[in-house]
């Protein structure tokens, strides 16, 4: 019994920091609809700033003052980020802002390294709270007790702020209908800024509060991100009580998982999330998301049409240039071009899902890595010839997509996105944990192409034909009746249903098709690198593709490809310099601000203004 109580208390104490970070993310999403990938970075900043302040400020007052000040400082930083980076792009397509927050992550990582150095910092102890108290004979650290007391106070204060004050009323109103709030004369811009700052301050507070239990290090931003997303989704996006309950559930279950199922540490959280979303599709306290309820911001999308002669000639010239690359480019140029082509195909497959299908997948790496693993497993365990293994890569990935899609497509919007993320994580943990078959994180090695493809140039042509072919096929499908049906389902589900389109089946097919094409890219990838590791299934890989699609332009057909080529090309150049993450982050933020329609969308507008392209409305 004593142990049980002690475990419960440990779980509740752990829930503290998690709740604060998650509630901040939830608030920000609820009001501004921004999926803030950089939330972990604000948490990290809170820890570092808190650490520095604790070195300066003496005694108990200094310690608690430092935590408070760290929260405030991070809030101010959040405010600056909102004003400088996010405010200019509120009218961009939905979810576009997450690209900007991704840029912020990179910038913060390098700045933290510059300011605080590479070494891990051990968090200072809370004065007077070192050691344990015994509860029924079990030792409980005093600081855990402090956290147990503090967290409900923060939660109550937040609850009071949201339910009892005028600011809170405005925040709740904006969560439900921000257009209306704006129409009633409330200064939306400052409301958004305020909420964003508050959310960041909470993340900073969480970071500073966990110092006595850990410390500050440069990996903590990404390490907390998934847990926070899971908590927010289980609780229901935008719901504070939900976030609190979910943080407690996850933390307590984790403590028991550690004791009774020690191997479960990787998957437990995601299994819980999948189960909750199966029963309550919008989290414990969330409300159903209706597409367009919050007003699709930005200008209406223009209908896509087959490329004109001009564009076709341009594409043909581009492909011809690529085909001639081995004649004038070096060996490495071909290797680099192969990498870029594969990534472009991967991005294009996500773009198909996202742009045409309106399905935001946060777990697209599952099919890219999945395809690669199918091929690698066949080669390793069944000595399958490369050609056959390669063929089975897209098929395997497509099958995985069918299974995952079948479950995820019950949901829409951000919940759909999070469920795809959860499945990608489950697949990742399966590969990671099942060392005997998949090699765990030591991966599968010596997965090389057949002899006739082993030369760099031969493989380059192989990748060129399949990538360009795949991309053209994706485009072709977009213009087929199936593509029209898909877009109809995206734009107006009810009308599409009324015209006899089985929207669920259409989405299902689209999901499987996009998964297949990602699997094709994965198959190309594994044979070009000769080895495969769980990295290719990680969240970061999914995010890479997502960033690229938005960066290129969601509402254009070629957004994924252009974004992919741009991102990979720039990355290859920048990683040669020491502070490349800073440069990359600033560049992404810069592109996002000057090109809120994505690179392709903005270029097209410029061309139209200059008279190089005909305007959409001129066309018949």
């Amino acid at each position, binding site marked *: 019994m004593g142990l049980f109580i002690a475990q419960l208390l440990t779980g509740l104490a752990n829930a503290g920091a998690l709740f604060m970070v998650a509630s901040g993310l939830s608030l920000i999403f609820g009001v501004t609809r921004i999926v803030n990938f950089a939330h972990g970075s604000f948490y990290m900043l809170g820890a570092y700033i808190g650490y520095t302040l604790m070195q300066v400020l003496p005694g108990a007052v200094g310690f608690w003052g430092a935590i408070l000040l760290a929260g405030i400082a991070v809030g101010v930083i959040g405010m600056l980020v909102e004003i400088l980076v996010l405010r200019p792009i509120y009218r961009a397509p939905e979810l576009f802002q997450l690209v900007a927050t991704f840029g912020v992550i990179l910038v913060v990582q390098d700045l933290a*390294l510059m300011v605080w150095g590479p*070494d891990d910092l051990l968090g200072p102890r809370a004065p007077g709270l070192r050691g344990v108290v015994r509860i029924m004979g079990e030792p409980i650290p005093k600081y855990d007790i402090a956290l147990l007391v503090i967290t409900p106070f923060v939660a109550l204060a937040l609850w009071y702020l949201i339910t009892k004050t005028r600011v809170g009323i405005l925040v709740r109103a904006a969560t439900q209908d921000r257009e209306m709030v704006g129409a009633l004369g409330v200064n939306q811009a400052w409301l958004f800024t305020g909420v964003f700052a508050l959310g960041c301050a909470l993340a900073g507070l969480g970071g500073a509060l966990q110092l006595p239990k850990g410390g500050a290090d440069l990996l903590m931003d990404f390490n907390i991100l998934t847990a926070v997303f899971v908590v927010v989704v289980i609780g229901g996006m935008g719901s504070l009580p939900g976030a609190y309950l979910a943080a407690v559930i996850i933390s307590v279950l984790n403590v028991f998982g550690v004791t009774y199922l020690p191997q479960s540490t990787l998957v437990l959280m995601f299994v819980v999330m999948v189960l909750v979303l199966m029963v309550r599709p919008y989290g414990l306290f969330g409300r159903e998301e209706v597409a367009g309820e919050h007003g699709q911001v930005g200008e209406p999308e223009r209908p896509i049409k087959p490329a004109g002669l001009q564009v076709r000639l341009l594409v043909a010239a581009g492909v011809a240039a690529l085909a001639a690359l081995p004649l004038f480019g070096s060996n490495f140029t071909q290797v680099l071009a192969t990498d870029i082509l594969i990534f472009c195909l991967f991005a294009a497959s996500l773009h198909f899902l996202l742009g045409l299908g309106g399905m935001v997948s946060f777990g697209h790496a599952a099919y890219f890595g999945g395809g690669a693993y199918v091929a690698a497993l066949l080669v390793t365990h069944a000595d399958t010839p490369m050609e056959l293994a390669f063929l089975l890569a897209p098929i395997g990935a497509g099958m995985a997509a069918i299974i995952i899609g079948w479950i995820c497509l019950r949901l829409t919007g951000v919940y759909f996105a999070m469920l795809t993320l959860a499945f990608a994580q489950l697949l990742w943990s399966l590969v990671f944990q099942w060392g005997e078959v998949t090699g765990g994180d030591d991966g599968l090695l010596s997965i090389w192409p057949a002899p006739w493809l082993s030369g760099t140039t031969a493989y380059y042509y192989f990748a060129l034909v399949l990538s360009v072919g795949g991309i053209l096929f994706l485009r072709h499908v977009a213009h087929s009746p199936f593509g029209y049906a898909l877009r109809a389902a995206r734009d107006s589900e009810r009308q599409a249903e009324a015209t006899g389109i089985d929207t669920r089946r259409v989405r299902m097919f689209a999901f499987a098709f996009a998964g297949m094409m990602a699997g094709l890219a994965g198959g190309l990838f594994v044979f070009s690198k000769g080895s495969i590791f769980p*990295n290719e299934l990680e969240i970061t890989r999914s995010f890479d593709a997502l960033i690229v699609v938005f960066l290129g332009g969601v509402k254009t057909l070629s957004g994924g490809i252009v974004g992919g080529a741009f991102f990979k090309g720039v990355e290859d150049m920048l990683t040669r310099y020491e502070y490349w993450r800073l440069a990359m982050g600033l560049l992404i933020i810069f592109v996002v601000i000057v090109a809120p329609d994505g690179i392709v969308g903005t270029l097209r507008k410029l061309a139209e203004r200059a008279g190089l392209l005909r305007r959409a409305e001129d066309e018949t």
Partner: protein
Amino acid sequence: MKRKTFLKGLMGAATLAALPLTAMAQEAIKIGEINHYKRMAAFAEPYRKGIELALEQVNEAGGVMGRPVEFIFRDDQGEPGEAVKIAEELMTRDGAVMLTGAILSNVGLALSSMAAQKGYVYLASEPLADSLVWESGNAYTFRLRSSTYMQAAMLAEQAAKTDAVKYALIAPNYAYGKDAVAAFKENLQRLKPDVEFVAEQWPALFKIDAGAEVQALERAKPDAIYNVTFGPDLAKFVREGTDRGLFDGREVFGLLSGEPEYLDPLGDEAPEGWVVTGYPWYDLKDGPGGEFVAAYQERWDDYPRLGSIVGYMTAQSIFAALEKAGSTDSEAIREAFSGLQLDTPVGQITYRAIDHQSTMGAYVGKTTLRDGKGVMTDWEYKDGANYLPSDEEVSKLRPAD
């Protein structure tokens, strides 16, 4: 003195004086070095400084084969796929003669697989995975640092000397943690068949829930604990464990826990009485080990970490292999590495012909607090050669040859 001899002497002196100059004028030998400089900055920076120190020393002394040596440092973001791409660029465009680098095992394995396919020589400096030289070993890959198996075997030897019978294990839930646990179990059971393993805890890497792990370990009531966690996980584990009295009256064996990279961030909360592998640079005053520490501190105004000595020895190994090969041809370098012997700050090491693992050992000692910092005392340098399986077993482990 005859005029002729005088002239000869003069000419000789002139040639000697001009030699370093011509060496510098000659084209540099380039080595490709790929690492996670950003993602693992705390480890990669000292490592790089170690390499640069060795590089400056060798170039001041006239270079290798009369040519200066240059390292091209590249960041791979900790991604195996990126590392493979960069390796190709280094070898085919930048003119590197061989590759080295990587801390993460998966990046090391990706590079080794590629090295075998393309016929590039790769010296894995820091990756610890046993499979790098065994299950997945190949003709073109060599490894410097003492592997997971070797270091776990050293700790198992120490553990077998104690009275502890019931062991609890805690290791990060990924390949390194699993290897480290398997090797420790295997060696300990061989040395002391009556040991019992009463708990195994597998926290996710860098996401440890330390309070819960400590409760779970305590629940098993072990006599001794074997710890494989490191980095921020170790800090949290030590803090919760100390607070909750987990380590009181128990033997604790910590893999890598004595390395300055992991021990120093703990400050005055470093655990006392743990048996660990690590690097006690503060006690190395004389001999080659002391000279290295002094030279490093003089050059960088900072003390060496384990990464520093590995970086330094990586560069040394490469210079020695190049000298032995007498050429920058991949095949020649590969043959030179096999069985290569050289003197390093930790003593003489050999790159074993049988599995390409160097015999670099590790320092094993007990942790204690000195001037508010964790240090190792009663340490001893253990030669890696004594902690490897027998040749027959190694041949069985290494199917590729």
